[in-house]
């Protein structure tokens, strides 16, 4: 029987985005940072002055450790690569890792939170127990071991983030679902014969998506930091161009001792800005940052 509730259309998932941004200046800044990074990634071939992997020459010699100049806005690395080009292309890896991991975390967390919150009973117990086990696994050590087990690289970072960081999202979503479940319109939907599945996915899910999305923006940051840490410890993909690998190479080549701040600082700052953007966007809801405060 087709369910029909007055006003129960698919509720618009998000408040008007622009209104949100206007009310929350921090979030606006965060969104602007993201926009810049996305532009960098999408238009990398046009923006980057050189091929990031090309070994540049200075006459016959390799163009190593060149300082900031008109030809190289951020100078070159010890291996003769242009820092700015690497930085721009690094945005691609950052977005790839960040978005994929965030989507995975949010998808898993939202799904499990939804199921646990709405269905209750043994499903709830199972999900909660599972969350507790997962929360008992230390993140960085697990990622290192997994990297040694499979192969170092971006995939391991994404999988680790997805496997270990969903519980907090799930808890928060579950809380919200618990309270939504008591609402009148849900009750009404049930009475008029809407199936459980339909209620969950068509009516309740869109209500929690804004929260999930905000949480996703934080998860992007954790994923980037995880990739940087993995690269630094030598478990990243040495072949990829990423901000984490840039930092590791600068460190290994003693860029700091050389005073090559132009090499070492930009990737670090880029990471800070991108992770910060995620935090700023979620400033709208403090509870996202401190999920254990939500109803356990």
């Amino acid at each position, binding site marked *: 029987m087709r369910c029909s509730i007055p006003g129960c259309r698919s509720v618009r998932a998000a408040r008007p985005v622009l209104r949100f941004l206007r009310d929350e200046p921090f979030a606006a800044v965060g969104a602007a940072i993201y926009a810049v990074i996305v532009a960098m990634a999408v238009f990398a071939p046009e923006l980057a002055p050189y091929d990031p992997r090309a070994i540049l020459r200075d006459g016959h010699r390799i163009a190593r450790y060149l300082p900031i100049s008109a030809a190289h806005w951020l100078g070159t690395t010890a291996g003769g690569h242009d820092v700015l080009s690497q930085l721009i292309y690094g945005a691609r890896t950052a977005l790839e890792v960040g978005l994929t991991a965030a989507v995975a975390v949010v998808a898993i967390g939202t799904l499990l939170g939804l199921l646990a919150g709405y269905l209750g009973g043994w499903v709830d117990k199972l999900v909660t127990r599972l969350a507790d086990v997962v929360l008992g696994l230390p993140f960085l050590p697990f990622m290192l071991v997994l990297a040694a087990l499979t192969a170092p690289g971006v995939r391991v970072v994404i999988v680790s983030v997805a496997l270990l960081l969903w519980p907090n999202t799930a808890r928060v979503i579950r809380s919200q679902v618990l309270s939504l479940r008591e609402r009148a319109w849900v009750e009404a939907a049930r009475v008029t014969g809407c199936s459980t599945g339909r209620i969950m996915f068509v009516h309740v899910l869109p209500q929690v998506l804004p929260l999930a999305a905000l949480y996703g923006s934080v998860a992007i940051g954790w994923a980037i930091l995880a990739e940087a840490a993995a690269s630094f410890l030598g478990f990243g993909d040495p072949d990829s161009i990423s901000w984490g690998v840039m930092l590791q190479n600068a460190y290994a080549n003693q860029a700091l001792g*050389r005073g090559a701040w132009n090499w070492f600082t930009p990737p670090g700052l880029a990471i800070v800005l991108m992770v910060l953007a995620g935090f700023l966007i979620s400033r709208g809801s403090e509870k996202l940052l401190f999920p254990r405060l939500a109803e356990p």
Partner: protein
Amino acid sequence: MKRFLLSVALTALPSLAASAQEAGDAIRPLTLITQPEAAAPQEHQAAQIIADAWRKLGLTVNVRPLPGQEFNQVIWYERQRWDTTTWQMVGRPERSDPDELTYNLFVSANAANGYDFVGYNNPEYDKLAQEQREELDLAKRKVLLIQAQELINHDQPYGFEVHPENVVAYNKTVWDPASMVSQAGIGIRNTWTWINVRPLGAQQDVILNSVAPPTNLNPFNISGQQGSWAAEIVWDRLMRVGPEGLPEPWGAEKVERPDTLTVNVTLRHGMMWSDGQPVTIDDAVFSLTAPDIGDKAPMYKPFVRNIASVEATGPDTLTIKLKHPDAAFLVSSLSKLNLAPKHVWQPIFDDLKNKPQTAESIQEEHPVSSGPFRIVRASLNQEIVLEANPTHWSPPKIHRWIMRIMPNVEASLGALKSGEINFLADYTGDPQLLQDLAKSSPNIAVSQALDLGFKFIAYNERRPPFQDVAFRQALSALIDRTLLAEDAWGGAAVPANSWISPALAVWHDQGIVSRVPGGNLEAAQAILAKAGYALVDGKLHYPAGVKETTAPYH
């Protein structure tokens, strides 16, 4: 018509352009394996530069960094799998005689499991290697070694890159620079310096750094480069390689070779073990024969393989009988085998007889030794503390020798500057930084010395086209060794084209580097053209009729 024929004739001269029908298959994408940039920046950058150059020939070259464990696993244990890789041979005092590398690297018997991991097989070379091993006359042996180097230059089983220079530094307000001893091919970081170095002030301890921790301290185990520095001064040997690279009696008072198969050794008087027992002739006999017991000391076994028998002929003398004449025996064996106490190790070897473990894995709690230093404390991941042995006949002038494990290169530089260490012994970083430090800090002295070792590109001859001499020659012709020395190694290296370093002036083939082209595209192309390789649409193809049957590395 005439013009057309002329242009065809011109293109048929040694240049590579050809039509698709005349050429064989396209050469598959080749993979150059190397270390990650963070693990070995110089090797990695060199690989990138070389790959860039090879691409100009129309090859598709992928540079593939592999992490340490996997790197060793693939190159050493999966010899069918890889195309080409960066690799190195490290300089050790025992390699002051070229025999070890001359024999192990290129003699075909070592191809399956040994050091001839590229699979080089040339009977003419095998013969030369055997002859030089048995030739005791210096001049004749030199001729043989020169011939060997020229042969290798022609065959190019390796694309030699550079001989690195050891860059070390120390605090010259703490240590008297005049007391440093420079050893050929090693530099000042050697046993003679540790024994001889004189403190100028209150600081009586040498405190040096090491990038990697040793696995253990055991006279029957070669625990890596840094572990060897400690082991060399804790355990004595019958001989030691002197500062000029020649063997000198050490634990022995006298060593004589009455004929090509006999070595007579007179043991030095008055040597004592650190547990108070005297060093006897039985200990010496044991030390020379124990590595041959079963497979209990696999690292040292090759160095006793040529010993037919060892017998004590008196309270202080023993006689070694060799199976074959061995020109390098004094350096490669008598200067390498450690003197170990029989009363400690015989029971251990007996106990291990029926167990799978080797003697290498045993770590004594209080190691018994007779060298100029004794082990006080070894926390292998952090620090090794040795103290001077006052009963030694050549006692050190310092009080303690302390090796701190510091994997972080920046931190070790900072430690030198702040005085936390007073000897920077293990520096794998940018030599420019060290030079700058010396300029700005009047306390710091830098010492740079050509090493015995070398860095190279290994061509796996089990996989075409690397089995073709012409192909290897062409690839080697594109290696710009001067550029690598200046840029990849920051000036702390010299171009190489031989496994025998110029530091071994007696054996090195002078001018050998000039007998291989370097960074020379025209020469490389000419070599390939002459051998029949062809360039089709910008890609390099095999000579006519040759098919590509090898799967790319993956």
